[in-house]
């Protein structure tokens, strides 16, 4: 299966380990970054993974940041993405069966590597089971975020990166 993956600088080593794990299983992985530990911003990578999935470049997406909230929410803000943020295998399985989830979010500082690999295995192998209810729910979800800028490229974030460079975002 072709899988897009993305992370922020907090969990790059975990993402790299997941890439090795997926490739060892024979999957083709599109690594959307980040690629090192330099401080960066999760929406950049959540958006890139989402774009790969909704344009059918990748069949599924995996996103990881500290809690998983930031990067998974970024992916969900792109129309057509259905991304649960999970800490257990059952939630991943049910999101595939009931909602045909196409991206999965995990917290790299929340969930250990062994559980993370099991979650990904189940996310990739569980089929969607279509029912009247699930069809309606998915149609409702897919109708949302219709004004999203998710497919307008990395450039949509340039204005904020300029402000960041100018020192406008200080603790």
């Amino acid at each position, binding site marked *: 299966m072709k899988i897009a993956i993305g992370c922020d600088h907090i969990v790059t080593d975990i993402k790299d380990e997941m890439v090795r794990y997926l490739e060892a299983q024979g999957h083709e992985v599109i690594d959307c970054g980040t690629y090192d530990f330099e401080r960066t*911003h999760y*929406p950049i990578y959540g*958006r890139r993974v989402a774009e790969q999935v909704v344009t059918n470049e990748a069949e599924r997406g995996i996103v990881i940041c500290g*809690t998983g909230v*930031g990067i998974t929410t970024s992916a969900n803000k792109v129309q057509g993405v259905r*991304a649960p*943020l999970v*800490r257990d295998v059952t939630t991943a399985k049910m999101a595939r069966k009931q909602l045909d989830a196409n991206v999965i979010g995990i917290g790299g500082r929340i969930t250990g590597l062994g559980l993370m690999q099991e979650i990904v295995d189940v996310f990739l192998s569980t089929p969607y089971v279509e029912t009247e209810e699930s069809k309606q729910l998915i149609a409702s*979800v897919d109708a949302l975020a219709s004004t999203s800028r998710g497919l307008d490229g990395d450039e949509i974030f340039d204005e904020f990166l300029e402000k*960041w460079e100018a020192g406008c975002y200080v603790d």
Partner: protein
Amino acid sequence: MKVALSADKASEGRKQLIVNHMEELGHEVVDYSGDDVVAAIVRVTDAVRDGEAARGILLDSFGSLSYMVAAKQSGIVCAQVSDEHSAKMTRDHNNSTIIAMGTEVIGDTLAREIVSAFLGAEYSGGRHQIRVDMLNKLA
């Protein structure tokens, strides 16, 4: 503070427990639950965006549907959580104003503790604000 809430039919018992817990903590709860689960979730996100409520709590079987629907609303940062640390950190780092929880994967005590952690934490701002600005640009 004022907290908006929605729950699906299967989460009715959990909803009562969470309402009682929040009222004991001194919060005012507004229940937006209804037959159309997606519409109820959107009523909660609208209430939070418009300032009618300061926070929102969404309950369904696994939390995933509530999370996806809320996260897609413009100007809303929602977190799907099943542990207390994520509930606290997502206020601190992401300025999340809404959490989604799965009734079938979280027990009563943990659910109460997650709500307490979420309602008791505040946003740090600073370097985290660039990411929130980026989220709002996306949708």
